[in-house]
């Protein structure tokens, strides 16, 4: 490749890169720009705000509606992520290490669920959760989130676990380490990146969900930010809540941007399931 490293080629790639980056970021910058516009200028249609203000952010953090939703979002996403990754690890370990009857079936079923249309589950879950009292509670959302993210967790983790050179465990034992030692100081460090990656992907999934969030909640007891945004109202009846929605959108985008900035390599590796190594 070094032979092709001419300045002309570099400039060409630079242009392409800029196009790609522009494509990816324009809508994000636009919503951020909206969130900094004062109410009077929100409808001026300029991409870059003429005047900057933080009023929209003050506005949403001043009300319970948004802060409650933010707490719900964070709490629900974290709990669901931890549980899904924990269960997923066991299943993935079994898939990667052992051969047991029904292994293919397990993988098949989990992929089936991953591709399952959520709306098909909404109506029965709505009925069931209303009758057992889970409707509009945290567990009421955590449960379906785990179900839908578990396949993703298993799939990604199994791909990572397959890459681990398990012979090392045997070698460590040969050198006198106990089973527990071999697991703790050889396997765990090797598996950690995969687990972190999976946790990020699952978190993004839970953070993102909208259909369950608007269907299975009715008050701010469990409503998450995406659902709350869709029901925002302006400070008066005749005012479109554009600024508040934009500000809320920016706030929930921040964690995603942070993840992407710090774990870019991990996320790419997770989505491509370890295939890039090699």
């Amino acid at each position: 490749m070094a032979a092709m490293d001419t300045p002309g080629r570099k400039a060409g790639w630079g242009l392409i890169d800029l196009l790609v980056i522009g494509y990816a970021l324009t809508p994000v910058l636009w919503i951020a720009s909206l969130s900094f516009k004062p109410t009077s200028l929100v409808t001026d249609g300029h991409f870059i705000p003429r005047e900057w203000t933080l009023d929209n952010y003050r506005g949403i953090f001043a009300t319970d509606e948004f802060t409650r939703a933010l707490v719900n979002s964070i709490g629900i996403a974290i709990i669901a992520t931890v549980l899904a990754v924990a269960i997923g690890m066991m299943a993935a370990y079994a898939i990667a290490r052992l051969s047991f009857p029904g292994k293919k079936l397990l993988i098949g079923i989990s992929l089936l669920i991953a591709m399952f249309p959520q709306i098909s589950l909404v109506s029965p879950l709505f009925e069931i959760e209303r009758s057992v009292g889970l409707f509009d509670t945290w567990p009421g959302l955590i449960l379906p989130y785990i179900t839908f993210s578990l396949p993703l967790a298993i799939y990604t983790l199994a791909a990572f676990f397959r890459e681990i050179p398990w012979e090392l465990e045997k070698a460590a034992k040969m050198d006198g380490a106990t089973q527990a030692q071999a697991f703790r100081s050889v396997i765990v460090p090797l598996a950690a990146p995969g687990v972190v990656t999976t946790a990020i992907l699952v978190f993004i999934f839970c953070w993102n969900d909208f259909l369950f969030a608007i269907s299975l909640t009715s008050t701010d007891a469990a409503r998450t930010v995406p659902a709350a945004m869709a029901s925002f109202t302006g400070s008066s009846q005749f005012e479109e809540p554009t600024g508040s929605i934009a500000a809320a959108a920016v706030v929930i985008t921040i964690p995603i941007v942070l993840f992407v900035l710090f774990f870019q390599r991990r996320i790419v590796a997770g989505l491509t399931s370890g295939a890039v190594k090699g």
Partner: protein
Amino acid sequence: MLAVTAYPVGYAVWLSLQRYDLRFPAQREFVGLSNYVAVLSDGYWWNAFSVTVAITAISVAIELVLGLALALAMHRTLIARGAVRTAVLIPYGIVTVAAAFSWTYAWTPGTGYLANLLPDGSAPLTEQLPALGIVVLAEVWKTTPFMALLLLAGLALVPDDLLRAAQVDGAGPWQRLTRIILPMMKPAILVALLFRTLDAFRIFDNIYVLTRGNNGTGSVSILGYDNLFKAFNLGIGSAISILIFLCVAIIAFLFIKLFGTAAPGSNVEGRR
């Protein structure tokens, strides 16, 4: 997992066989297949169905081409590879609802930078075809990176040596793409297509925010949601849910049969 999916699905089938309207709970009774007859003989279902199929087909096709280009760019770029990958991950990670609001305001007359490029008086989100175009745009923007990353994984499996050998033998860039890269990426492409098709078929968030399914832009998921939570008709809503489930199952089945994709599970099983 089975408890949270199989049981509700069974329950949905059961609900779908009943007349059950939350506004008139006393009239709950077993009505057999008449909910399905009602749904399938109704224009709304077929409209939503064709809208969904159109959105799925068009957006997946665009995503495939764009995703492939993006994957090639990410794979081959000489500079700023990290920055490009980081930027591309943002659409993937961003909350769909937040992105959808961004598109909504971009196209709202007066407010948006894109709407202002259009002639005065046009409100694209209130007309069926322009609105569907915007839905496809929002969907493509959001999911192309996912497609690109799956394809990138396939691309990484193409050995550089092989490409260099082909180059030495006089194959041009286009020939190398169609004769070597694409055939070797076939499994990755098929898995990406399968995932995205099934995913696009259940499109909900984007449409909900962009148009609320007005003016004939509702997908089947929107139709199901409206019947459940606006009309409170659990019987009809469940029947729609089951029909969507069947559609998705049929799509998955066709993919696996027609294209001979080894069930996506075999991806996990090893092949590499």
